[in-house]
Protein backbone atom coordinates (compact mmCIF):
# COMPACT_ATOMS: atom_id res chain seq x y z
CA UNK A 1 0.00 0.00 0.00
CA UNK A 2 2.58 2.56 -1.08
CA UNK A 3 0.01 4.99 -2.39
CA UNK A 4 1.08 8.63 -2.58
CA UNK A 5 -0.76 11.12 -0.39
CA UNK A 6 -2.60 12.85 -3.21
CA UNK A 7 -6.13 14.08 -2.65
CA UNK A 8 -6.89 13.83 -6.31
CA UNK A 9 -5.54 10.34 -6.72
CA UNK A 10 -7.90 8.05 -8.49
CA UNK A 11 -8.88 5.18 -6.29
CA UNK A 12 -10.09 1.99 -7.87
CA UNK A 13 -13.32 0.30 -6.98
CA UNK A 14 -11.43 -2.90 -6.26
CA UNK A 15 -9.36 -1.05 -3.70
CA UNK A 16 -12.47 0.37 -2.02
CA UNK A 17 -14.18 -3.01 -2.07
CA UNK A 18 -11.16 -4.66 -0.45
CA UNK A 19 -11.29 -2.01 2.23
CA UNK A 20 -15.01 -2.41 2.90
CA UNK A 21 -14.76 -6.19 3.02
CA UNK A 22 -11.87 -5.97 5.43
CA UNK A 23 -13.83 -3.56 7.61
CA UNK A 24 -16.87 -5.85 7.55
CA UNK A 25 -14.75 -8.85 8.54
CA UNK A 26 -13.32 -6.96 11.52
CA UNK A 27 -16.81 -5.99 12.70
CA UNK A 28 -18.20 -9.50 12.24
CA UNK A 29 -15.23 -10.85 14.19
CA UNK A 30 -15.72 -8.20 16.94
CA UNK A 31 -12.14 -7.00 16.46
CA UNK A 32 -13.27 -3.57 17.48
CA UNK A 33 -9.90 -2.05 18.34
CA UNK A 34 -8.60 -3.06 14.94
CA UNK A 35 -11.69 -1.52 13.42
CA UNK A 36 -11.12 1.69 15.35
CA UNK A 37 -7.66 1.87 13.78
CA UNK A 38 -9.37 2.21 10.38
CA UNK A 39 -10.81 5.58 11.39
CA UNK A 40 -9.32 9.03 11.10
CA UNK A 41 -8.86 11.02 14.33
CA UNK A 42 -11.86 13.18 13.46
CA UNK A 43 -14.13 10.41 12.21
CA UNK A 44 -17.87 10.30 12.73
CA UNK A 45 -20.50 7.58 12.51
CA UNK A 46 -24.17 8.13 11.79
CA UNK A 47 -27.34 6.07 11.67
CA UNK A 48 -30.13 8.46 10.61
CA UNK A 49 -33.68 7.92 11.83
CA UNK A 50 -35.78 5.70 9.60
CA UNK A 51 -38.29 8.44 8.84
CA UNK A 52 -35.68 11.05 7.89
CA UNK A 53 -32.90 9.07 6.18
CA UNK A 54 -31.27 12.08 4.55
CA UNK A 55 -31.45 14.49 7.50
CA UNK A 56 -28.73 16.40 9.33
CA UNK A 57 -27.93 15.19 12.84
CA UNK A 58 -27.64 18.75 14.15
CA UNK A 59 -31.35 19.37 13.58
CA UNK A 60 -32.83 15.88 13.60
CA UNK A 61 -32.89 13.14 16.22
CA UNK A 62 -30.75 10.30 14.87
CA UNK A 63 -30.47 6.72 16.03
CA UNK A 64 -26.70 7.16 16.27
CA UNK A 65 -24.63 10.31 15.75
CA UNK A 66 -21.15 9.73 17.16
CA UNK A 67 -18.16 11.96 16.91
CA UNK A 68 -14.82 10.24 17.43
CA UNK A 69 -14.94 10.83 21.19
CA UNK A 70 -18.24 9.06 21.63
CA UNK A 71 -17.33 6.43 19.08
CA UNK A 72 -14.30 5.48 21.15
CA UNK A 73 -16.58 5.31 24.20
CA UNK A 74 -18.97 3.13 22.21
CA UNK A 75 -16.16 0.68 21.53
CA UNK A 76 -15.27 0.62 25.25
CA UNK A 77 -18.93 -0.13 25.97
CA UNK A 78 -19.23 -2.83 23.32
CA UNK A 79 -16.20 -4.66 24.72
CA UNK A 80 -17.63 -4.58 28.26
CA UNK A 81 -19.52 -7.69 29.43
CA UNK A 82 -21.93 -5.23 31.06
CA UNK A 83 -23.04 -4.08 27.63
CA UNK A 84 -26.05 -6.29 28.18
CA UNK A 85 -27.61 -5.77 24.77
CA UNK A 86 -24.50 -7.23 23.18
CA UNK A 87 -23.45 -9.80 25.71
CA UNK A 88 -22.78 -12.38 24.64
CA UNK A 89 -21.88 -10.55 21.43
CA UNK A 90 -24.37 -10.99 18.62
CA UNK A 91 -23.27 -13.15 15.74
CA UNK A 92 -23.41 -10.93 12.71
CA UNK A 93 -22.77 -11.49 9.03
CA UNK A 94 -22.45 -8.57 6.64
CA UNK A 95 -23.05 -8.70 2.90
CA UNK A 96 -21.76 -5.66 1.08
CA UNK A 97 -22.46 -5.04 -2.59
CA UNK A 98 -23.17 -2.46 -5.28
CA UNK A 99 -20.02 -0.59 -4.34
CA UNK A 100 -19.58 2.68 -6.22
CA UNK A 101 -17.17 5.58 -6.00
CA UNK A 102 -19.45 8.57 -6.31
CA UNK A 103 -16.98 11.42 -6.04
CA UNK A 104 -13.60 12.68 -4.92
CA UNK A 105 -13.53 16.07 -3.26
CA UNK A 106 -11.13 17.79 -0.88
CA UNK A 107 -9.16 14.59 -0.54
CA UNK A 108 -12.27 12.65 0.50
CA UNK A 109 -13.51 9.74 -1.54
CA UNK A 110 -17.28 9.35 -1.44
CA UNK A 111 -18.35 5.73 -1.51
CA UNK A 112 -21.81 4.25 -1.83
CA UNK A 113 -22.61 0.62 -1.12
CA UNK A 114 -25.49 -1.60 -0.10
CA UNK A 115 -25.45 -3.72 3.01
CA UNK A 116 -27.43 -6.58 4.47
CA UNK A 117 -26.51 -7.55 8.01
CA UNK A 118 -27.93 -10.66 9.63
CA UNK A 119 -27.85 -10.60 13.39
CA UNK A 120 -28.29 -13.76 15.41
CA UNK A 121 -28.80 -14.13 19.14
CA UNK A 122 -29.67 -17.20 21.13
CA UNK A 123 -33.40 -17.91 21.35
CA UNK A 124 -34.20 -15.04 19.04
CA UNK A 125 -35.30 -14.98 15.43
CA UNK A 126 -32.70 -13.58 13.02
CA UNK A 127 -32.90 -9.81 12.62
CA UNK A 128 -32.03 -8.32 9.26
CA UNK A 129 -30.61 -4.83 8.90
CA UNK A 130 -30.69 -3.76 5.26
CA UNK A 131 -29.68 -0.43 3.82
CA UNK A 132 -27.05 1.67 2.15
CA UNK A 133 -23.69 3.01 3.20
CA UNK A 134 -22.59 6.52 2.38
CA UNK A 135 -18.99 6.78 3.48
CA UNK A 136 -16.26 9.33 3.07
CA UNK A 137 -12.84 7.71 2.91
CA UNK A 138 -9.47 9.37 3.10
CA UNK A 139 -6.23 8.13 1.69
CA UNK A 140 -3.41 8.32 4.23
CA UNK A 141 0.13 7.03 4.47
CA UNK A 142 -1.36 4.05 6.28
CA UNK A 143 -3.83 3.34 3.50
CA UNK A 144 -7.53 4.18 3.26
CA UNK A 145 -9.23 5.43 6.42
CA UNK A 146 -12.83 6.21 7.29
CA UNK A 147 -13.57 9.89 7.80
CA UNK A 148 -17.34 9.65 7.84
CA UNK A 149 -19.44 6.53 8.06
CA UNK A 150 -23.17 6.65 7.45
CA UNK A 151 -25.39 3.55 7.61
CA UNK A 152 -28.87 4.35 6.33
CA UNK A 153 -31.52 1.73 6.98
CA UNK A 154 -34.20 1.09 4.37
CA UNK A 155 -37.00 0.04 6.72
CA UNK A 156 -39.78 2.54 7.47
CA UNK A 157 -39.19 1.95 11.19
CA UNK A 158 -36.75 -0.02 13.30
CA UNK A 159 -39.63 -2.23 14.38
CA UNK A 160 -38.50 -5.80 14.87
CA UNK A 161 -34.86 -4.83 14.46
CA UNK A 162 -35.25 -3.41 17.96
CA UNK A 163 -32.05 -1.81 19.16
CA UNK A 164 -29.10 -0.75 17.06
CA UNK A 165 -26.75 -1.92 19.79
CA UNK A 166 -23.94 -3.18 17.55
CA UNK A 167 -22.12 -1.30 14.79
CA UNK A 168 -24.01 -1.31 11.49
Amino acid at each position, binding site marked *: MNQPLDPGAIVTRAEVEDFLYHEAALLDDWKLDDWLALLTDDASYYVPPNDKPDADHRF*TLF*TVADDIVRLRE*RIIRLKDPN*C*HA*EYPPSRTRRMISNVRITGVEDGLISVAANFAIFRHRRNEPVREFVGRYRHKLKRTDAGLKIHERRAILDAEEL*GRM*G*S*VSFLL
Partner: protein
Amino acid sequence: MTEYRQGNGSGNGHGSGNGRFVVEDLENLTFSVNRKVFVSDDVLEGEHRAIFDKCWVYVGHASEVKNPNDFRTRQVAGRPVIFCRDRTGTVRALINSCRHRGALVCREREGNARQFYCIYHGWSYNTDGSLKGIPGDDAYPPGYDKTKKGLVPVPRLEHYKDFYFVNFDHDAPDLHTYLAGAKDYIDLIVDQSPSGRMEIISGVQEYDIKANWKLLVENSVDDYHLVTTHSTWLNYMRNSGVNVSPAKGHMLPTKGFGLDLGNGHLTTDNPNYRGRPVAKWIAVYGEEAKADIDAIRKELVERLGEARAARVADTNRNLCVFPNLVINDGSSVTVRNFFPVSPGHMRVTAWALGPVEETEAQRARRLHAFLTFYGPGGFATPDDVAALELAQQGFAAWREVPWSDLSRGMGSSQEQLATDEGHLRVFWRKWSELMEARP
Protein backbone atom coordinates in the same frame (compact mmCIF):
# COMPACT_ATOMS: atom_id res chain seq x y z
CA MET B 1 -39.95 18.74 48.58
CA THR B 2 -43.25 20.52 48.81
CA GLU B 3 -44.60 18.38 45.96
CA TYR B 4 -43.98 15.25 47.93
CA ARG B 5 -46.90 12.96 48.37
CA GLN B 6 -46.93 9.72 50.19
CA GLY B 7 -46.39 7.06 47.57
CA ASN B 8 -46.67 4.12 49.85
CA GLY B 9 -49.94 4.02 51.66
CA SER B 10 -53.32 4.00 50.02
CA GLY B 11 -55.23 6.02 52.57
CA ASN B 12 -57.55 3.28 53.73
CA GLY B 13 -54.95 1.07 55.36
CA HIS B 14 -55.78 -2.00 53.30
CA GLY B 15 -54.07 -1.33 50.01
CA SER B 16 -56.44 -0.29 47.25
CA GLY B 17 -54.44 -2.37 44.76
CA ASN B 18 -55.55 -5.68 46.18
CA GLY B 19 -57.11 -7.96 43.64
CA ARG B 20 -56.49 -11.05 41.59
CA PHE B 21 -53.18 -9.88 40.20
CA VAL B 22 -51.88 -7.24 42.56
CA VAL B 23 -51.56 -8.11 46.22
CA GLU B 24 -50.47 -5.59 48.80
CA ASP B 25 -49.83 -6.93 52.26
CA LEU B 26 -49.56 -4.00 54.65
CA GLU B 27 -48.95 -6.25 57.61
CA ASN B 28 -45.91 -7.98 56.23
CA LEU B 29 -45.03 -5.03 53.97
CA THR B 30 -44.94 -6.87 50.68
CA PHE B 31 -46.29 -5.90 47.28
CA SER B 32 -46.65 -8.60 44.66
CA VAL B 33 -47.74 -8.64 41.03
CA ASN B 34 -48.83 -11.87 39.45
CA ARG B 35 -46.79 -12.59 36.34
CA LYS B 36 -49.84 -13.79 34.47
CA VAL B 37 -50.48 -10.11 33.73
CA PHE B 38 -47.44 -10.16 31.42
CA VAL B 39 -48.31 -13.25 29.41
CA SER B 40 -52.09 -13.58 29.26
CA ASP B 41 -54.15 -12.74 26.17
CA ASP B 42 -57.21 -12.42 28.42
CA VAL B 43 -55.47 -9.83 30.58
CA LEU B 44 -54.40 -7.91 27.47
CA GLU B 45 -57.97 -7.91 26.15
CA GLY B 46 -59.08 -6.64 29.55
CA GLU B 47 -56.46 -3.88 29.39
CA HIS B 48 -57.74 -2.76 26.01
CA ARG B 49 -61.26 -2.41 27.34
CA ALA B 50 -60.63 -1.24 30.91
CA ILE B 51 -57.54 0.93 30.37
CA PHE B 52 -56.84 1.96 26.79
CA ASP B 53 -60.53 2.52 26.02
CA LYS B 54 -61.12 4.48 29.24
CA CYS B 55 -57.99 6.51 29.95
CA TRP B 56 -56.57 9.56 28.24
CA VAL B 57 -53.97 8.32 25.78
CA TYR B 58 -51.31 10.53 24.24
CA VAL B 59 -51.74 11.13 20.51
CA GLY B 60 -49.31 13.91 19.62
CA HIS B 61 -47.93 17.39 20.18
CA ALA B 62 -49.29 20.58 18.65
CA SER B 63 -45.87 21.32 17.13
CA GLU B 64 -46.20 18.24 14.93
CA VAL B 65 -49.08 19.87 13.06
CA LYS B 66 -47.88 23.46 12.96
CA ASN B 67 -49.73 24.65 9.88
CA PRO B 68 -53.30 24.32 8.64
CA ASN B 69 -53.77 21.00 6.83
CA ASP B 70 -50.64 19.42 8.41
CA PHE B 71 -51.24 15.81 9.38
CA ARG B 72 -49.58 12.80 11.02
CA THR B 73 -50.94 9.29 10.86
CA ARG B 74 -50.41 6.98 13.79
CA GLN B 75 -51.78 3.99 15.66
CA VAL B 76 -53.41 4.95 18.93
CA ALA B 77 -54.65 2.21 21.22
CA GLY B 78 -54.91 -0.08 18.22
CA ARG B 79 -56.83 2.37 16.05
CA PRO B 80 -55.57 4.12 12.92
CA VAL B 81 -55.77 7.84 13.67
CA ILE B 82 -55.11 10.99 11.65
CA PHE B 83 -53.76 13.68 13.97
CA CYS B 84 -54.11 16.90 12.01
CA ARG B 85 -54.82 20.59 11.96
CA ASP B 86 -57.76 21.50 9.77
CA ARG B 87 -58.00 24.34 7.27
CA THR B 88 -59.12 26.78 9.95
CA GLY B 89 -56.43 25.82 12.45
CA THR B 90 -58.32 23.48 14.77
CA VAL B 91 -56.41 20.38 15.88
CA ARG B 92 -58.29 17.14 15.16
CA ALA B 93 -57.97 13.43 15.77
CA LEU B 94 -59.93 11.51 13.14
CA ILE B 95 -60.39 7.80 12.74
CA ASN B 96 -58.51 6.92 9.57
CA SER B 97 -61.16 4.73 8.00
CA CYS B 98 -63.43 5.52 5.06
CA ARG B 99 -67.10 5.77 6.02
CA HIS B 100 -67.98 3.89 2.88
CA ARG B 101 -66.13 0.56 3.10
CA GLY B 102 -63.40 1.12 5.62
CA ALA B 103 -60.08 1.66 3.85
CA LEU B 104 -57.51 4.05 5.26
CA VAL B 105 -57.97 7.45 3.63
CA CYS B 106 -54.48 8.70 4.47
CA ARG B 107 -51.44 6.50 3.98
CA GLU B 108 -48.49 8.85 4.34
CA ARG B 109 -46.66 9.12 7.64
CA GLU B 110 -46.93 12.91 7.63
CA GLY B 111 -47.52 15.80 5.31
CA ASN B 112 -49.81 18.63 4.34
CA ALA B 113 -52.97 17.79 2.45
CA ARG B 114 -56.05 19.67 1.31
CA GLN B 115 -58.10 16.51 1.51
CA PHE B 116 -58.00 12.87 2.50
CA TYR B 117 -58.88 10.58 -0.35
CA CYS B 118 -59.92 6.96 -0.39
CA ILE B 119 -58.25 5.08 -3.24
CA TYR B 120 -60.93 2.40 -3.19
CA HIS B 121 -64.00 4.23 -4.50
CA GLY B 122 -62.83 7.80 -4.41
CA TRP B 123 -64.67 9.22 -1.42
CA SER B 124 -62.87 12.34 -0.23
CA TYR B 125 -62.84 14.26 3.05
CA ASN B 126 -61.84 17.73 4.17
CA THR B 127 -59.15 18.02 6.83
CA ASP B 128 -61.85 18.77 9.42
CA GLY B 129 -63.22 15.32 8.61
CA SER B 130 -66.35 16.45 6.77
CA LEU B 131 -67.25 14.59 3.60
CA LYS B 132 -66.11 16.46 0.52
CA GLY B 133 -67.29 14.31 -2.33
CA ILE B 134 -68.68 10.95 -3.44
CA PRO B 135 -68.12 9.85 -7.05
CA GLY B 136 -71.46 9.09 -8.70
CA ASP B 137 -73.49 10.38 -5.79
CA ASP B 138 -76.69 10.46 -7.88
CA ALA B 139 -76.99 6.71 -7.26
CA TYR B 140 -77.75 7.24 -3.58
CA PRO B 141 -81.35 7.36 -2.45
CA PRO B 142 -83.12 10.67 -1.89
CA GLY B 143 -82.50 11.95 1.61
CA TYR B 144 -79.09 10.28 1.87
CA ASP B 145 -77.40 12.62 4.34
CA LYS B 146 -73.82 13.33 3.31
CA THR B 147 -73.34 15.70 6.23
CA LYS B 148 -73.41 12.64 8.50
CA LYS B 149 -70.78 10.77 6.50
CA GLY B 150 -67.65 12.55 7.61
CA LEU B 151 -64.63 10.80 9.09
CA VAL B 152 -65.45 9.84 12.67
CA PRO B 153 -63.55 11.91 15.20
CA VAL B 154 -62.00 10.18 18.18
CA PRO B 155 -64.68 10.69 20.87
CA ARG B 156 -62.55 13.07 22.97
CA LEU B 157 -59.51 15.17 22.12
CA GLU B 158 -58.04 17.60 24.65
CA HIS B 159 -54.63 19.05 25.35
CA TYR B 160 -52.55 20.32 28.19
CA LYS B 161 -49.87 22.80 27.13
CA ASP B 162 -49.80 21.40 23.58
CA PHE B 163 -49.65 17.71 24.61
CA TYR B 164 -52.74 16.24 22.95
CA PHE B 165 -54.52 13.23 24.36
CA VAL B 166 -57.48 11.25 23.08
CA ASN B 167 -60.07 9.31 24.96
CA PHE B 168 -62.32 6.68 23.41
CA ASP B 169 -64.79 7.05 26.27
CA HIS B 170 -67.34 9.84 25.71
CA ASP B 171 -67.98 10.01 29.45
CA ALA B 172 -64.38 10.32 30.67
CA PRO B 173 -63.53 13.19 33.02
CA ASP B 174 -61.81 16.13 31.38
CA LEU B 175 -58.09 15.86 30.70
CA HIS B 176 -56.97 18.51 33.18
CA THR B 177 -58.76 16.72 36.01
CA TYR B 178 -57.39 13.40 34.84
CA LEU B 179 -53.79 14.63 34.75
CA ALA B 180 -53.95 15.69 38.42
CA GLY B 181 -50.44 16.26 39.81
CA ALA B 182 -48.79 15.32 36.50
CA LYS B 183 -49.59 18.86 35.33
CA ASP B 184 -47.01 20.33 37.74
CA TYR B 185 -44.32 18.20 36.16
CA ILE B 186 -45.37 19.01 32.60
CA ASP B 187 -45.13 22.66 33.70
CA LEU B 188 -41.53 22.11 34.78
CA ILE B 189 -40.77 20.78 31.31
CA VAL B 190 -42.59 23.53 29.45
CA ASP B 191 -40.95 26.23 31.60
CA GLN B 192 -37.67 25.42 29.84
CA SER B 193 -38.89 27.49 26.90
CA PRO B 194 -38.81 31.29 27.27
CA SER B 195 -42.19 31.48 25.51
CA GLY B 196 -43.59 28.31 27.09
CA ARG B 197 -43.54 26.63 23.71
CA MET B 198 -41.79 23.30 23.30
CA GLU B 199 -41.60 21.41 20.05
CA ILE B 200 -41.15 17.84 18.91
CA ILE B 201 -37.87 17.71 17.03
CA SER B 202 -37.79 15.99 13.65
CA GLY B 203 -36.73 12.34 13.61
CA VAL B 204 -38.70 9.59 15.31
CA GLN B 205 -37.50 6.39 16.92
CA GLU B 206 -39.92 3.53 16.42
CA TYR B 207 -38.80 0.18 17.76
CA ASP B 208 -40.26 -3.00 19.14
CA ILE B 209 -39.49 -4.62 22.45
CA LYS B 210 -40.32 -8.28 22.90
CA ALA B 211 -41.75 -7.67 26.32
CA ASN B 212 -45.01 -6.69 27.97
CA TRP B 213 -45.81 -2.97 27.73
CA LYS B 214 -46.12 -2.54 31.49
CA LEU B 215 -42.47 -3.44 31.92
CA LEU B 216 -41.53 -0.24 30.13
CA VAL B 217 -43.67 1.79 32.52
CA GLU B 218 -41.73 0.28 35.41
CA ASN B 219 -38.37 0.57 33.69
CA SER B 220 -38.85 4.20 32.68
CA VAL B 221 -39.12 5.40 36.28
CA ASP B 222 -37.06 2.74 38.06
CA ASP B 223 -33.82 4.19 39.39
CA TYR B 224 -32.96 1.00 41.25
CA HIS B 225 -31.70 -0.63 38.05
CA LEU B 226 -29.46 2.20 36.94
CA VAL B 227 -26.24 1.08 38.54
CA THR B 228 -26.40 -2.50 37.31
CA THR B 229 -28.12 -2.20 33.95
CA HIS B 230 -26.33 0.99 32.92
CA SER B 231 -22.81 0.60 34.25
CA THR B 232 -21.38 1.15 30.76
CA TRP B 233 -23.19 4.49 30.56
CA LEU B 234 -21.86 5.44 33.99
CA ASN B 235 -18.36 4.54 32.75
CA TYR B 236 -18.84 6.77 29.74
CA MET B 237 -19.90 9.66 31.97
CA ARG B 238 -16.97 9.03 34.31
CA ASN B 239 -14.54 8.87 31.39
CA SER B 240 -15.93 12.21 30.22
CA GLY B 241 -15.26 13.89 33.55
CA VAL B 242 -18.77 13.76 35.04
CA ASN B 243 -18.96 12.93 38.74
CA VAL B 244 -21.19 9.87 39.01
CA SER B 245 -19.99 8.61 42.38
CA PRO B 246 -22.83 7.59 44.66
CA ALA B 247 -23.84 10.09 47.32
CA LYS B 248 -23.15 8.99 50.88
CA GLY B 249 -25.64 6.33 51.87
CA HIS B 250 -27.26 6.21 48.42
CA MET B 251 -27.07 4.09 45.32
CA LEU B 252 -26.97 7.07 42.97
CA PRO B 253 -25.00 10.32 42.82
CA THR B 254 -27.95 12.27 44.26
CA LYS B 255 -30.84 11.52 46.57
CA GLY B 256 -34.02 11.54 44.51
CA PHE B 257 -37.61 10.67 45.19
CA GLY B 258 -40.40 8.61 43.69
CA LEU B 259 -43.73 10.43 43.83
CA ASP B 260 -47.42 9.67 43.51
CA LEU B 261 -49.09 12.33 41.35
CA GLY B 262 -52.61 10.99 41.65
CA ASN B 263 -54.79 8.97 39.23
CA GLY B 264 -52.00 6.48 38.61
CA HIS B 265 -49.49 9.08 37.42
CA LEU B 266 -46.04 9.05 38.95
CA THR B 267 -42.62 10.54 38.62
CA THR B 268 -39.09 10.49 39.82
CA ASP B 269 -37.77 13.79 41.12
CA ASN B 270 -33.99 13.86 41.29
CA PRO B 271 -31.35 16.51 41.89
CA ASN B 272 -29.42 16.61 38.65
CA TYR B 273 -25.96 15.08 38.20
CA ARG B 274 -26.11 14.05 34.56
CA GLY B 275 -26.25 17.46 32.91
CA ARG B 276 -29.22 19.31 31.44
CA PRO B 277 -29.35 21.25 28.18
CA VAL B 278 -31.54 23.70 30.19
CA ALA B 279 -29.42 24.43 32.05
CA LYS B 280 -26.69 22.52 33.84
CA TRP B 281 -23.29 22.12 32.24
CA ILE B 282 -21.36 18.87 32.33
CA ALA B 283 -17.99 18.08 30.79
CA VAL B 284 -19.57 16.08 27.94
CA TYR B 285 -20.86 19.37 26.48
CA GLY B 286 -17.32 20.75 26.11
CA GLU B 287 -15.74 23.88 27.58
CA GLU B 288 -17.06 26.02 24.73
CA ALA B 289 -20.64 25.35 25.85
CA LYS B 290 -20.17 26.78 29.35
CA ALA B 291 -20.97 30.40 28.52
CA ASP B 292 -24.03 29.43 26.53
CA ILE B 293 -25.40 27.25 29.34
CA ASP B 294 -24.81 30.17 31.71
CA ALA B 295 -26.84 32.41 29.41
CA ILE B 296 -29.71 29.95 29.28
CA ARG B 297 -29.59 29.78 33.07
CA LYS B 298 -29.66 33.55 33.34
CA GLU B 299 -32.76 33.77 31.17
CA LEU B 300 -34.46 31.21 33.41
CA VAL B 301 -33.65 33.18 36.55
CA GLU B 302 -34.85 36.46 35.04
CA ARG B 303 -38.09 34.93 33.89
CA LEU B 304 -38.88 32.53 36.72
CA GLY B 305 -36.90 33.75 39.73
CA GLU B 306 -34.05 31.89 41.44
CA ALA B 307 -36.12 29.21 43.13
CA ARG B 308 -38.21 28.19 40.15
CA ALA B 309 -35.20 28.40 37.82
CA ALA B 310 -33.31 26.02 40.08
CA ARG B 311 -36.31 23.70 40.14
CA VAL B 312 -36.39 23.65 36.33
CA ALA B 313 -32.66 23.47 35.73
CA ASP B 314 -31.28 21.45 38.63
CA THR B 315 -33.78 18.61 38.91
CA ASN B 316 -34.59 15.71 36.60
CA ARG B 317 -37.85 13.87 36.32
CA ASN B 318 -39.02 10.71 34.63
CA LEU B 319 -42.74 11.26 34.42
CA CYS B 320 -45.29 8.57 33.63
CA VAL B 321 -48.79 9.69 32.70
CA PHE B 322 -50.98 6.66 33.22
CA PRO B 323 -51.12 4.40 31.34
CA ASN B 324 -48.45 4.68 28.67
CA LEU B 325 -46.92 8.14 28.19
CA VAL B 326 -43.44 8.68 29.54
CA ILE B 327 -41.60 11.99 29.47
CA ASN B 328 -38.01 11.65 30.59
CA ASP B 329 -36.62 15.07 31.39
CA GLY B 330 -33.03 14.20 32.21
CA SER B 331 -29.96 14.18 29.96
CA SER B 332 -32.33 15.61 27.34
CA VAL B 333 -36.10 15.43 27.01
CA THR B 334 -37.70 12.39 25.43
CA VAL B 335 -41.40 11.84 24.94
CA ARG B 336 -42.27 8.22 24.38
CA ASN B 337 -45.37 6.14 24.30
CA PHE B 338 -45.92 2.50 23.66
CA PHE B 339 -48.74 0.12 22.92
CA PRO B 340 -49.04 -3.63 23.26
CA VAL B 341 -49.04 -5.73 20.09
CA SER B 342 -49.43 -8.93 22.09
CA PRO B 343 -48.74 -9.78 25.75
CA GLY B 344 -45.05 -10.27 25.01
CA HIS B 345 -44.54 -7.57 22.40
CA MET B 346 -44.79 -3.77 22.48
CA ARG B 347 -44.21 -1.06 19.93
CA VAL B 348 -42.41 2.06 21.18
CA THR B 349 -42.42 5.51 19.62
CA ALA B 350 -39.96 8.07 20.96
CA TRP B 351 -39.31 11.69 20.14
CA ALA B 352 -37.00 14.44 21.32
CA LEU B 353 -38.57 17.61 22.72
CA GLY B 354 -36.95 21.04 22.97
CA PRO B 355 -37.71 24.74 23.37
CA VAL B 356 -38.71 26.36 20.08
CA GLU B 357 -36.24 29.20 20.69
CA GLU B 358 -33.11 27.06 20.70
CA THR B 359 -30.18 28.16 18.56
CA GLU B 360 -28.53 25.71 16.20
CA ALA B 361 -25.75 25.07 18.70
CA GLN B 362 -28.22 24.52 21.54
CA ARG B 363 -30.32 22.17 19.47
CA ALA B 364 -27.27 20.19 18.37
CA ARG B 365 -26.14 19.94 22.02
CA ARG B 366 -29.61 18.75 23.08
CA LEU B 367 -29.64 16.04 20.41
CA HIS B 368 -26.10 14.96 21.25
CA ALA B 369 -27.05 14.74 24.94
CA PHE B 370 -30.14 12.72 24.03
CA LEU B 371 -28.06 10.05 22.32
CA THR B 372 -25.63 9.65 25.21
CA PHE B 373 -28.36 7.75 27.02
CA TYR B 374 -31.68 7.42 25.24
CA GLY B 375 -32.93 5.57 22.23
CA PRO B 376 -32.26 2.34 20.35
CA GLY B 377 -28.71 3.45 19.52
CA GLY B 378 -28.01 5.17 22.84
CA PHE B 379 -25.67 4.01 25.57
CA ALA B 380 -28.46 2.91 27.91
CA THR B 381 -31.81 2.13 26.26
CA PRO B 382 -30.57 -1.00 24.44
CA ASP B 383 -29.63 -2.48 27.82
CA ASP B 384 -33.08 -1.63 29.19
CA VAL B 385 -34.55 -3.46 26.23
CA ALA B 386 -32.29 -6.42 26.98
CA ALA B 387 -33.39 -6.46 30.63
CA LEU B 388 -37.09 -6.27 29.73
CA GLU B 389 -36.78 -9.02 27.14
CA LEU B 390 -34.98 -11.24 29.66
CA ALA B 391 -37.78 -10.62 32.17
CA GLN B 392 -40.36 -11.55 29.56
CA GLN B 393 -38.46 -14.77 28.83
CA GLY B 394 -38.44 -15.53 32.55
CA PHE B 395 -42.22 -15.05 32.70
CA ALA B 396 -42.64 -18.20 30.60
CA ALA B 397 -42.40 -19.97 33.96
CA TRP B 398 -45.12 -17.79 35.50
CA ARG B 399 -46.98 -20.83 36.80
CA GLU B 400 -43.94 -21.99 38.78
CA VAL B 401 -42.75 -18.51 39.77
CA PRO B 402 -46.02 -16.63 39.88
CA TRP B 403 -45.15 -13.42 41.69
CA SER B 404 -42.96 -10.42 40.95
CA ASP B 405 -41.84 -8.42 43.96
CA LEU B 406 -42.22 -4.66 44.24
CA SER B 407 -41.82 -4.29 47.99
CA ARG B 408 -38.77 -2.03 47.93
CA GLY B 409 -39.14 0.87 50.32
CA MET B 410 -42.32 -0.40 51.98
CA GLY B 411 -40.72 -0.28 55.40
CA SER B 412 -40.22 3.45 55.06
CA SER B 413 -43.11 5.40 56.52
CA GLN B 414 -41.88 8.71 55.15
CA GLU B 415 -40.35 9.40 51.80
CA GLN B 416 -40.01 6.98 48.92
CA LEU B 417 -36.70 7.22 47.13
CA ALA B 418 -36.43 7.03 43.37
CA THR B 419 -34.50 3.80 43.98
CA ASP B 420 -37.47 2.44 45.93
CA GLU B 421 -40.55 1.01 44.28
CA GLY B 422 -43.22 3.18 45.88
CA HIS B 423 -43.85 5.05 42.64
CA LEU B 424 -44.03 1.78 40.69
CA ARG B 425 -46.71 0.63 43.14
CA VAL B 426 -48.70 3.74 42.25
CA PHE B 427 -48.98 2.47 38.68
CA TRP B 428 -49.92 -1.04 39.76
CA ARG B 429 -52.61 0.12 42.20
CA LYS B 430 -54.31 2.13 39.47
CA TRP B 431 -53.90 -0.71 37.00
CA SER B 432 -55.46 -3.14 39.45
CA GLU B 433 -58.29 -0.78 40.34
CA LEU B 434 -59.30 -0.42 36.69
CA MET B 435 -58.86 -4.10 35.88
CA GLU B 436 -60.86 -5.24 38.91
CA ALA B 437 -63.67 -2.83 38.08
CA ARG B 438 -64.22 -4.18 34.59
CA PRO B 439 -67.30 -6.31 34.07
